[in-house]
């Protein structure tokens, strides 16, 4: 006899428990994942608004809608919100929480209460970050990197912002710890390492980076806080400190952090492409190992952010070389995805569209990354819009489109309803068009010498800046269409079957939405995650 927990969908109240408390104090990984998803999307909205306002300011030289100090605060907060509140926790904390235990046939994560704590830490950090906007000496104006010695001296509210980042770091560490333990210990008996879905592999690699690198971030921002409070002088050159030390510490975390951002998105794409090509993934082991290789090599390249900061030439050459090494596992993935599509029975659905968008934009971002990673060319484009464009191609084009792909892939599973696919396709065109219009001109004006983070610019950059601003409007239109199309699936009867896309990983064997309690008995895992023989679409 089945208990209600095994039949009632997790979105519906468990008998006898309902209301908001059954969500915010739930230890169910699926509900915590949903909490993360809503929090992250709210923060995404904040970040987008800040970004669009900045672009609007830059549509013409000189003052347009805000003064310089406001602009400084805007780009700082856009960075802090997007990086620490959206991109880093985005896919692992939201989709990872919901899907990881389902993909490996576990009841839940290893430490459900710790999991809940990490969401609460996230919420606390996010709240503090927002409070730092309105209290103290005004919003922080240092840029999201909090570079010393300016961050030690500015009277703006940097102290509170770094406390927020510190707390968010712990949220990230706990999630990573939880995932590693879960993957090691809670796999279903037949779920060998070789049968792990690639999304789970990517979460595993990511979790190690979170565990390895995030403590350094915690220490670094804690030191800024102490410096501001007590003036110890670790980083302050006027007290014998070393600003370069700060940059090292900061980037030891923050470069691996971009792999925390991108690797889970790669995992999403690795799960989507074979499902829509109806073909086993090409090079399963290579993709799985390349995730680990990125995690490992990505931890050794941080100083390529500092080529012009005054390091020794030897250090510059070593870090430049290591940066090129990271390109190898990334390229392995891209080639394997393309090879998976080759001779596949492709059916083009929104998740695949977004996955293809990911491949295109990520490749553009990755290749321009080599321009930056090469010490010689780096000197010329350092701190220009070229960097801004590269970064957004990798992170927004990569992680952002990975997130959108994940939403379009798994929303039917989570909500039991299909979204408006036509609107999803329309939004895809708007997003891709707007995205390239917004960021591609930045490559051009960056090469022409437009420095990043400047409030104002020479008239020669105006065309590029204007095209870019107009692109931001198209992009926002795309976002609105996409979220409207998705939100329509939040209502109406649940009609979607277990497996609308005909995917072969374990979560698709469950009802949509999954019940409160899943896999109370460990499932059989008769086949690999990408063998589609006998798996049919069940819309």
């Amino acid at each position: 006899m089945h208990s209600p927990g095994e039949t009632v969908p997790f979105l519906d109240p468990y008998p006898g428990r309902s209301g908001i408390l059954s969500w915010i104090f739930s230890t169910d990984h699926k509900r915590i994942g949903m909490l993360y998803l809503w929090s992250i999307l709210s923060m995404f909205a904040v970040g987008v608004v800040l970004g669009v306002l900045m672009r609007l300011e830059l549509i013409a030289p000189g003052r347009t809608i805000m003064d310089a100090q406001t602009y400084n605060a805007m780009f700082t907060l856009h960075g802090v919100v997007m990086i620490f509140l959206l991109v880093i926790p985005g896919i692992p904390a939201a989709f990872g929480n919901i899907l990881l235990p389902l993909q490996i046939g576990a009841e839940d994560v290893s430490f459900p209460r710790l999991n809940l704590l990490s969401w609460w830490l996230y919420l606390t950090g996010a709240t503090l970050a927002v409070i730092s906007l309105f209290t103290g000496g005004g919003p922080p104006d240092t840029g999201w990197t909090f570079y010393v010695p300016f961050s030690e001296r500015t009277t703006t509210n940097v102290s509170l912002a770094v406390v927020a980042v510190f707390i968010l770091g712990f949220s990230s560490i706990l999630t990573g710890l939880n995932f590693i333990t879960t993957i090691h210990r809670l796999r279903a008996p037949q779920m060998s390492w070789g049968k792990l879905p690639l999304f789970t592999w990517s979460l595993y690699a990511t979790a190690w980076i979170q565990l390895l690198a995030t403590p350094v971030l915690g220490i670094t921002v804690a030191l800024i806080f102490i410096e501001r409070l007590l003036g110890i002088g670790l980083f302050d050159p006027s007290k014998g400190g070393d600003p370069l030390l700060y940059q090292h510490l900061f980037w030891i975390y923050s470069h691996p952090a971009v792999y925390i951002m991108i690797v889970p998105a790669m995992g999403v794409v690795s799960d989507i492409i074979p499902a829509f090509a109806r073909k086993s993934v090409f090079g399963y082991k290579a993709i799985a190992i390349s995730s680990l290789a990125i995690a490992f090599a990505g931890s050794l390249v941080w100083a390529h952010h500092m080529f012009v900061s005054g390091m020794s030439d030897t250090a510059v050459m070593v870090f430049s070389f290591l940066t090129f090494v990271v390109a190898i596992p990334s390229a392995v993935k891209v080639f394997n995805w393309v090879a998976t599509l080759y001779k596949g029975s492709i059916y083009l659905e929104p998740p695949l569209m977004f996955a293809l968008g990911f491949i295109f934009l990520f490749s553009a971002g990755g290749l321009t990354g080599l321009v930056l990673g090469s010490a010689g060319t780096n000197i010329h484009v350092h701190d220009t819009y070229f960097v801004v464009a590269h970064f957004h191609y990798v992170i927004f084009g990569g992680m952002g489109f990975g997130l959108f792909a994940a939403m379009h892939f798994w929303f039917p599973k989570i909500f039991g309803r299909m979204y408006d696919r036509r609107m999803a396709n329309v939004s895809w065109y708007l997003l891709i068009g707007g995205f390239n219009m917004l960021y591609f001109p930045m490559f051009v004006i960056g090469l022409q010498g437009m420095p990043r983070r400047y409030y104002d610019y020479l008239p020669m950059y105006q065309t590029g800046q204007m095209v870019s601003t107009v692109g931001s409007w198209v992009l926002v239109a795309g976002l609105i269409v996409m979220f409207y199309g998705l939100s329509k699936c939040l209502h109406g009867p649940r009609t979607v079957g277990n497996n609308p896309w005909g995917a072969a990983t374990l979560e698709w064997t469950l009802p949509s939405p999954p019940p409160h309690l899943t896999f109370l008995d460990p499932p059989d895992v008769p086949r690999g995650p990408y063998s589609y023989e006998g798996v049919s679409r069940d819309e």
Partner: protein
Amino acid sequence: MRSALLIFILLTWPSVAFPQSALQTAHDAAAAVTAHDHSMAQQADEALHAEHSDAQALPKDHAAGDRTPVVVPGEATNSGLVKPGAMSADHAGHGEQPVPAEHVHPAPVAETSIGVTEKLGEFIAAEARFFDEGGKAVTMAEIVDKPTIIVPVYFSCPNVCAIIQSSLTAVLPDVKLEPGVDFQVVSVSFDDTDTPTLAAHQKNNYLAAMDFTFPENGWRFLTGDEANIRKLMDSLGFGFRREGKDFLHPVVIMAVSPKGKIVRYLYGTRPLAFDLTMAATEAGKERIGLSVKRVLAYCFSYDPEGKRYAFNFMKITGTGILFILAVLLVSLMLAGRKKRTPRN
């Protein structure tokens, strides 16, 4: 096993996130700095503040394309303090420019004045008396009879003064003016214990570095007594102070017109030949130029202690984190998969 693992991790974790040793080293480093360096820290603080306050002026000369990487330690300081959004106040093309937003920083402790107070358009102390490298007494009015680059240094300086003068030997031959006729360089010692003999020795050294192609009257080396040094340096806005055998002082050179008017400040240890040419040309026309603010490097005593502490700090943190992670990985591998008891 699961809870044991959790407890183990929670117990060990704080020691990674807040390594005692790391805080201790930070504390030691701070103590070390404050103990023998307190006053210097204060002045430097002030000097840096001075730098920031006129960082607003930076972009005037800082064309958008000019991002020459400078590998002088001071650069990090500099770029950190330049407010990113506040840009050029006068680049051509459009009129109404944003006034950099008001942004108050803590007022410096005004105890001493190490640093530069720019006195553009004012006149140097013409009556200040010095000795030239031949031991002859001269006034500044007699010396400054043509566009002059004044280089305040002290001859026994262990680092930046030697660096700036050496870089002048490399740069001066590229200045597109006739030395000794269209312009001259005057190194003035602010150490009252420096003697004309030492000055002559210095002059010989630096001219030798240029293979004696630079005319002797093109680069003068002056020494003087404390009162006259103060008089001149105050008129130049050059704040310095003796600290034991050495001095705390900013690194800057000035261009002065034939009438003794200060027309330009050039910061950093390696001025560009172009800037020197411009400065001397403007000085010839009595026109005040803009301050070239490439790098404001301060003369700090190198603190190998601090460096070592910092390095230890990184090593301890890194080793701690890696050790904990290795323990975690090994214990997970040993623990294997969790045994699930079948229901019913």
